[in-house]
Protein backbone atom coordinates (compact mmCIF):
# COMPACT_ATOMS: atom_id res chain seq x y z
CA UNK A 1 0.00 0.00 0.00
CA UNK A 2 0.98 3.64 -0.23
CA UNK A 3 2.21 3.75 3.39
CA UNK A 4 5.11 1.48 2.41
CA UNK A 5 6.24 3.99 -0.14
CA UNK A 6 8.49 6.09 2.07
CA UNK A 7 8.58 9.77 1.24
CA UNK A 8 5.52 9.80 -1.00
CA UNK A 9 2.23 11.35 0.00
CA UNK A 10 -0.91 9.53 -1.14
CA UNK A 11 -3.31 12.04 -2.61
CA UNK A 12 -6.67 11.72 -4.28
CA UNK A 13 -6.24 12.43 -8.00
CA UNK A 14 -9.27 12.90 -10.25
CA UNK A 15 -8.88 13.06 -14.02
CA UNK A 16 -11.85 14.83 -15.57
CA UNK A 17 -12.50 13.91 -19.20
CA UNK A 18 -14.84 16.37 -20.88
CA UNK A 19 -14.11 15.93 -24.58
CA UNK A 20 -14.96 13.50 -27.36
CA UNK A 21 -12.20 10.93 -28.04
CA UNK A 22 -11.35 12.23 -31.51
CA UNK A 23 -11.40 15.69 -33.07
CA UNK A 24 -8.82 16.92 -30.57
CA UNK A 25 -5.90 15.20 -28.84
CA UNK A 26 -7.00 16.07 -25.29
CA UNK A 27 -8.62 12.70 -24.57
CA UNK A 28 -5.65 10.59 -25.67
CA UNK A 29 -3.12 12.81 -23.89
CA UNK A 30 -5.28 12.69 -20.77
CA UNK A 31 -5.14 8.90 -20.83
CA UNK A 32 -1.36 9.09 -21.19
CA UNK A 33 -1.20 11.09 -17.94
CA UNK A 34 -3.41 8.52 -16.20
CA UNK A 35 -1.17 5.63 -17.31
CA UNK A 36 2.05 7.39 -16.23
CA UNK A 37 0.43 8.62 -13.03
CA UNK A 38 -0.65 5.09 -12.08
CA UNK A 39 2.98 4.29 -11.24
CA UNK A 40 2.91 6.85 -8.43
CA UNK A 41 0.55 4.81 -6.23
CA UNK A 42 -1.91 7.59 -5.57
CA UNK A 43 -5.66 7.25 -5.08
CA UNK A 44 -6.82 7.66 -8.70
CA UNK A 45 -10.32 8.22 -10.10
CA UNK A 46 -11.55 9.14 -13.56
CA UNK A 47 -14.65 11.19 -14.33
CA UNK A 48 -16.39 11.40 -17.69
CA UNK A 49 -18.61 14.41 -18.30
CA UNK A 50 -20.34 15.81 -21.36
CA UNK A 51 -18.90 14.53 -24.66
CA UNK A 52 -16.21 12.80 -22.58
CA UNK A 53 -18.61 9.84 -22.20
CA UNK A 54 -18.01 9.06 -25.90
CA UNK A 55 -14.43 8.06 -24.98
CA UNK A 56 -15.82 4.91 -23.37
CA UNK A 57 -18.30 3.82 -26.04
CA UNK A 58 -18.05 0.39 -27.65
CA UNK A 59 -17.49 -0.15 -31.33
CA UNK A 60 -15.26 2.83 -32.08
CA UNK A 61 -13.96 2.65 -35.64
CA UNK A 62 -11.33 5.26 -36.50
CA UNK A 63 -9.99 3.79 -39.74
CA UNK A 64 -11.44 6.52 -41.94
CA UNK A 65 -9.98 9.17 -39.62
CA UNK A 66 -6.51 7.63 -39.86
CA UNK A 67 -6.04 8.00 -36.11
CA UNK A 68 -5.48 5.30 -33.51
CA UNK A 69 -8.53 3.87 -31.75
CA UNK A 70 -7.36 4.10 -28.15
CA UNK A 71 -10.56 2.89 -26.48
CA UNK A 72 -9.09 -0.62 -25.80
CA UNK A 73 -6.59 1.09 -23.46
CA UNK A 74 -9.41 1.82 -21.03
CA UNK A 75 -9.75 -1.94 -20.52
CA UNK A 76 -6.11 -2.04 -19.39
CA UNK A 77 -6.70 0.48 -16.59
CA UNK A 78 -7.67 -2.33 -14.23
CA UNK A 79 -4.13 -3.75 -14.56
CA UNK A 80 -2.87 -0.39 -13.31
CA UNK A 81 -5.22 -0.54 -10.31
CA UNK A 82 -7.28 2.29 -11.77
CA UNK A 83 -10.81 1.03 -11.14
CA UNK A 84 -12.82 4.07 -10.07
CA UNK A 85 -14.49 5.38 -13.22
CA UNK A 86 -17.41 7.74 -12.71
CA UNK A 87 -19.69 8.61 -15.60
CA UNK A 88 -22.17 11.45 -15.48
CA UNK A 89 -25.71 10.11 -15.75
CA UNK A 90 -27.09 13.22 -17.39
CA UNK A 91 -24.35 13.15 -20.05
CA UNK A 92 -25.14 9.53 -20.95
CA UNK A 93 -28.88 10.17 -21.13
CA UNK A 94 -28.53 13.32 -23.21
CA UNK A 95 -26.62 11.26 -25.78
CA UNK A 96 -28.97 8.28 -25.79
CA UNK A 97 -26.35 6.04 -24.16
CA UNK A 98 -26.47 3.64 -21.25
CA UNK A 99 -23.90 1.73 -19.20
CA UNK A 100 -24.18 -1.27 -21.55
CA UNK A 101 -22.79 0.88 -24.40
CA UNK A 102 -19.47 1.33 -22.57
CA UNK A 103 -16.25 -0.72 -22.91
CA UNK A 104 -15.53 -0.97 -19.17
CA UNK A 105 -17.54 -1.26 -15.95
CA UNK A 106 -18.25 2.20 -14.54
CA UNK A 107 -20.23 3.82 -11.79
CA UNK A 108 -22.95 6.04 -13.23
CA UNK A 109 -23.55 9.03 -10.96
CA UNK A 110 -25.77 12.09 -11.27
CA UNK A 111 -24.29 15.58 -11.49
CA UNK A 112 -24.92 16.25 -7.81
CA UNK A 113 -23.00 13.13 -6.74
CA UNK A 114 -20.26 14.00 -9.26
CA UNK A 115 -19.88 17.36 -7.52
CA UNK A 116 -19.42 15.55 -4.19
CA UNK A 117 -16.80 13.27 -5.74
CA UNK A 118 -14.91 16.31 -7.03
CA UNK A 119 -15.20 18.02 -3.66
CA UNK A 120 -13.43 15.05 -2.03
CA UNK A 121 -10.30 15.24 -4.24
CA UNK A 122 -6.87 16.71 -3.57
CA UNK A 123 -5.83 17.16 -7.21
CA UNK A 124 -8.17 17.58 -10.18
CA UNK A 125 -6.73 17.43 -13.69
CA UNK A 126 -9.29 18.58 -16.23
CA UNK A 127 -8.91 17.69 -19.90
Amino acid sequence: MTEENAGSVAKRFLYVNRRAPYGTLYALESLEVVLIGAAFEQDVSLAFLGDGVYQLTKGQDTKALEVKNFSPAFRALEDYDVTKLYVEKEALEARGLSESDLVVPVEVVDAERMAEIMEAQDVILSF
Partner: protein
Amino acid sequence: MKFGILVNEGPYTHEASDTAYQFVKAALAKGHEIYRVFFYHDGVNNGTRLTVPPQDDRNIVKRWSELAAEHKLDLVVCIAAAQRRGLMDKSEAKRNGKDADNIAPGFRISGLGQLIEAGIQSDRLVVFGD
Protein backbone atom coordinates in the same frame (compact mmCIF):
# COMPACT_ATOMS: atom_id res chain seq x y z
CA MET B 1 1.27 28.27 -0.22
CA LYS B 2 3.07 26.01 -2.66
CA PHE B 3 1.53 26.01 -6.16
CA GLY B 4 1.95 23.63 -9.07
CA ILE B 5 0.89 25.05 -12.43
CA LEU B 6 -0.29 23.19 -15.53
CA VAL B 7 -0.48 25.07 -18.85
CA ASN B 8 -2.44 23.15 -21.49
CA GLU B 9 -2.63 25.64 -24.36
CA GLY B 10 -0.08 27.24 -26.66
CA PRO B 11 0.78 30.94 -26.79
CA TYR B 12 -1.33 33.61 -28.55
CA THR B 13 -4.22 31.45 -29.86
CA HIS B 14 -5.42 30.92 -26.32
CA GLU B 15 -5.20 33.10 -23.22
CA ALA B 16 -4.31 30.20 -20.90
CA SER B 17 -0.56 30.86 -20.98
CA ASP B 18 -1.05 34.60 -20.34
CA THR B 19 -3.35 33.90 -17.39
CA ALA B 20 -0.96 31.31 -15.96
CA TYR B 21 1.91 33.80 -16.28
CA GLN B 22 -0.06 36.54 -14.51
CA PHE B 23 -1.12 34.07 -11.81
CA VAL B 24 2.47 32.93 -11.22
CA LYS B 25 3.71 36.53 -11.09
CA ALA B 26 0.98 37.54 -8.64
CA ALA B 27 1.54 34.47 -6.47
CA LEU B 28 5.30 35.15 -6.28
CA ALA B 29 4.65 38.82 -5.46
CA LYS B 30 2.49 37.67 -2.53
CA GLY B 31 5.31 35.47 -1.24
CA HIS B 32 3.93 32.10 -2.43
CA GLU B 33 6.12 29.36 -3.83
CA ILE B 34 5.81 27.97 -7.35
CA TYR B 35 6.90 24.34 -7.20
CA ARG B 36 6.83 23.83 -10.95
CA VAL B 37 5.15 25.01 -14.15
CA PHE B 38 4.35 22.04 -16.40
CA PHE B 39 3.50 22.52 -20.08
CA TYR B 40 1.30 19.90 -21.72
CA HIS B 41 -0.78 19.47 -24.90
CA ASP B 42 -0.16 22.50 -27.19
CA GLY B 43 1.17 24.22 -24.08
CA VAL B 44 4.60 22.85 -25.01
CA ASN B 45 4.71 25.52 -27.72
CA ASN B 46 5.24 28.10 -24.98
CA GLY B 47 8.79 26.77 -24.84
CA THR B 48 10.05 27.47 -28.36
CA ARG B 49 12.64 30.21 -28.63
CA LEU B 50 11.84 30.70 -32.33
CA THR B 51 8.69 32.77 -31.87
CA VAL B 52 8.90 36.30 -33.24
CA PRO B 53 5.76 38.18 -32.19
CA PRO B 54 5.13 41.73 -33.48
CA GLN B 55 7.13 44.33 -31.53
CA ASP B 56 4.05 46.02 -30.11
CA ASP B 57 2.81 42.73 -28.62
CA ARG B 58 3.90 40.84 -25.53
CA ASN B 59 6.57 38.18 -26.04
CA ILE B 60 5.02 35.25 -24.22
CA VAL B 61 7.97 32.85 -24.51
CA LYS B 62 10.59 35.44 -23.54
CA ARG B 63 8.40 36.54 -20.63
CA TRP B 64 8.37 32.98 -19.22
CA SER B 65 12.15 32.67 -19.70
CA GLU B 66 12.75 35.97 -17.89
CA LEU B 67 10.43 35.07 -15.02
CA ALA B 68 12.17 31.70 -14.69
CA ALA B 69 15.59 33.37 -14.51
CA GLU B 70 14.42 35.93 -11.99
CA HIS B 71 12.71 33.46 -9.63
CA LYS B 72 14.54 30.20 -10.45
CA LEU B 73 11.27 28.70 -11.71
CA ASP B 74 11.19 25.09 -12.87
CA LEU B 75 9.55 25.23 -16.32
CA VAL B 76 9.02 21.69 -17.59
CA VAL B 77 7.83 20.74 -21.07
CA CYS B 78 6.28 17.27 -21.48
CA ILE B 79 8.56 15.14 -23.62
CA ALA B 80 5.81 13.09 -25.31
CA ALA B 81 3.75 16.18 -26.16
CA ALA B 82 6.92 18.01 -27.27
CA GLN B 83 8.02 15.23 -29.61
CA ARG B 84 4.63 15.25 -31.36
CA ARG B 85 4.82 18.99 -31.85
CA GLY B 86 8.47 19.48 -32.77
CA LEU B 87 9.93 20.98 -29.63
CA MET B 88 13.49 19.80 -28.96
CA ASP B 89 16.46 20.51 -26.78
CA LYS B 90 19.96 19.62 -27.97
CA SER B 91 20.04 16.08 -26.64
CA GLU B 92 16.52 15.26 -27.88
CA ALA B 93 17.41 16.62 -31.32
CA LYS B 94 20.49 14.43 -31.40
CA ARG B 95 18.65 11.38 -30.10
CA ASN B 96 15.94 11.76 -32.76
CA GLY B 97 18.30 12.61 -35.61
CA LYS B 98 17.04 16.17 -36.04
CA ASP B 99 19.21 19.00 -37.34
CA ALA B 100 18.05 21.69 -34.90
CA ASP B 101 16.76 22.37 -31.43
CA ASN B 102 14.42 25.15 -30.40
CA ILE B 103 13.86 25.11 -26.65
CA ALA B 104 13.89 28.51 -24.98
CA PRO B 105 16.16 29.39 -22.04
CA GLY B 106 14.79 28.38 -18.66
CA PHE B 107 12.70 25.48 -20.00
CA ARG B 108 13.61 21.81 -19.70
CA ILE B 109 12.11 18.71 -21.28
CA SER B 110 11.02 15.86 -19.04
CA GLY B 111 8.33 13.23 -18.51
CA LEU B 112 4.73 13.30 -17.33
CA GLY B 113 5.88 12.02 -13.96
CA GLN B 114 6.98 15.59 -13.29
CA LEU B 115 3.32 16.67 -13.53
CA ILE B 116 2.15 13.97 -11.13
CA GLU B 117 4.98 14.86 -8.75
CA ALA B 118 3.90 18.51 -8.89
CA GLY B 119 0.39 17.39 -7.93
CA ILE B 120 1.75 15.42 -5.00
CA GLN B 121 4.22 18.02 -3.75
CA SER B 122 2.14 21.19 -4.18
CA ASP B 123 -0.61 22.42 -1.89
CA ARG B 124 -2.65 23.29 -4.99
CA LEU B 125 -2.29 22.28 -8.62
CA VAL B 126 -3.86 24.95 -10.81
CA VAL B 127 -4.77 24.03 -14.39
CA PHE B 128 -4.84 26.68 -17.13
CA GLY B 129 -6.51 25.54 -20.32
CA ASP B 130 -9.69 25.29 -22.30
